[in-house]
């Protein structure tokens, strides 16, 4: 990375030297230059992988394996390798083929359905808990919050074995450490339930902590006023406190949606075969390109671009919410 400060020694005169002179007199200018250099560096490193996906996706299939993506350029008689990969040809057809070879839109629809269902469940349950922890004083409050926090730290691997057995529905669930059978669960593998249940438990703690913070900030007077008007206790929560904390609710919703959309562990295990009809989410869709069409790298790239678009749009639209939620929620956790 060549910053103006790196090159100042090589130049002997001209505008660079004038810049150097003024920079020595005014060190703030150097900091400013360093600042922009660092900013460009971070931008390039974060966005470059997406550029690479686009390059691959528009390269025609026949050209993928021949030659290099780094073209040799001849500039005024000096030839060298261009440092940035460029497409070898142009054929946006991969963005259509990607839906034909594998029903990728159905996988995405599955992901949306799972994410929306989980978000609704999490918002409802976490609202009740957020109200309790944010607004009520009762014995055991700190201990319960600590318990929920502790559970959220356990790795998914510590839950997966019994959950998989239970969702397979072959044997009755017994009380741990005894052989007393409770009930035989229905077979839930390859259904939304086997994914929504673990997702809800996994991502609920963050929403609880976000909503606890937001609900705790609503003045008591507003709730009292609603109660005097004749609202029930639950009514006050859902008609007064929740609407007044709309930014907090939106934050919890966005973070839960993104978390479910991005989840890998349970998505790949609970949907036992990567088929859209069996509720496999985008994890299954993308992986079926990797396993079935092993050399069609342009399709893998196109599928990745299509799959990533919803979250990119969500980040751009809701970035204020994401930033405030992650910082308030995660630092609390």
């Amino acid at each position, binding site marked *: 990375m060549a910053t103006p400060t790196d090159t100042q020694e090589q130049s002997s005169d001209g505008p660079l030297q004038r810049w150097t002179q003024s920079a020595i007199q005014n060190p703030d200018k150097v900091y400013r230059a360093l600042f922009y250099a660092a900013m460009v560096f971070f931008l390039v490193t974060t966005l470059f992988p997406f550029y690479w996906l686009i390059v691959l996706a528009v390269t025609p299939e026949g050209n993928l394996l021949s030659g290099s993506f780094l073209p040799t350029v001849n500039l005024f008689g000096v030839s060298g390798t261009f440092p940035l990969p460029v497409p070898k040809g142009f054929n946006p057809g991969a963005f259509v083929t990607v839906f034909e070879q594998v029903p990728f839109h159905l996988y995405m629809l599955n992901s949306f359905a799972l994410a929306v269902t989980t978000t609704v469940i999490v918002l409802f349950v976490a609202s009740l808990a957020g109200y309790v922890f944010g607004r009520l004083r009762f014995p055991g409050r700190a201990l319960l919050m600590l318990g929920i926090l502790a559970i959220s730290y356990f790795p998914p691997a510590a839950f997966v074995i019994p959950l998989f057995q239970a969702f397979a529905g072959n044997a009755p669930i017994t009380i741990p450490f005894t052989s007393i059978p409770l009930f035989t669960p229905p077979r839930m593998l390859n259904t939304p339930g086997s994914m929504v249940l673990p997702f809800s438990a996994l991502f609920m703690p963050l929403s609880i902590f976000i909503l606890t913070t937001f609900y705790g900030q609503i003045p008591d007077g507003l709730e009292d006023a609603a109660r005097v008007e004749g609202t029930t206790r639950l009514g006050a929560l859902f008609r007064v406190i929740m609407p007044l904390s709309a930014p907090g609710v939106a934050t919890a919703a966005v973070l839960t949606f993104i978390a479910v959309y991005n989840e890998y562990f349970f998505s790949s295990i609970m949907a036992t075969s990567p088929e859209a009809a069996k509720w496999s989410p*985008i994890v299954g869709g993308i992986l079926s390109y990797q396993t079935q069409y092993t050399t069609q790298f342009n399709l893998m790239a196109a599928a990745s671009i299509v799959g990533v678009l919803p979250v990119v749009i969500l980040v751009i639209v809701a970035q204020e919410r994401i930033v405030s939620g992650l910082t308030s929620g995660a630092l609390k956790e």
Partner: protein
Amino acid sequence: MRWMENLSDTQYAYLLLVPVFVLLGIVALYPLLRTFELSLFALSADFSSTNFVGAGNYVGLFTGEKNRFLPGGTTFLPEGFGTGALLNSALVVTIIFAVVSVLFETLIGLGQALILDQDFYGRRWIRAAIIIPWAVPIVIQGMIFFLMFNSNVGFLTPPLADLGLLAPTNTLNDTASATFIIIVADIWKTSAFMALLILAGLQSIDRGLYDVAKVAGATKWQQFKLITFPLILPTIGVAVLFRSVQAMRVYGIIDTVSSCTVVPSLSCMVVATFTTREGTSAAIAFVTAAIIGTVVMGLIVWQGEDAI
């Protein structure tokens, strides 16, 4: 609904928490206890029944007796101190992944946070660009790095192989190279998360302190060393531990970029063995949970009440 109005605060609180208890009870508490129970049993020699073996599975893991059940010649503890032996150990590879990726994520996240803390035109867009990797689904993150480094189209492999960082051929099936790539992939995705946490710490610093420093003639570096850094150190501490806990769970990125037999993380080993060797798998899962639990206890003791 009348009866609900007459409950005391405590009764009402516990009533509202019933859904949380039910959900966490089914999906977290029951599986956790059951995993522990399973880890105390082992399959009999003729595969017909399971026998109670107490801590046998754990002892087997740590003595290396269970290594034969792990895929791809993986060992649980390292069998030597060479690079190959260390990277072939599920425990060591997971810890290396967590330590190295969190270290770089902290440094890069700090850099990004210092940038985002400034006021400049277009800050909103730069911030969105820096957050986007955090929101990318793990499977797509894996696909991106698979496409950048695989031996057919991955244009990054030849230059990095020339530097001696990666194996020139069959890169994604070489343990050291694949571990390197997976760490880079994790750093790319998660630095932004660190940046946001550290940014929150930066923005809580009283700006007046910098005015005082300027009047006193402190350079930018002195301002950073004497004001910024000490004040954000607690935030960085919490963020580092929080991220380490998440990094110990690594699974999806390995499964997509390479495979669990090449980079054997602890979660990978649980998934690879749980249909055939329940007891061993449950024991590994519980050891993972115990390691994470130790880290978290450290955090809670160190932070005290503030951790909640």
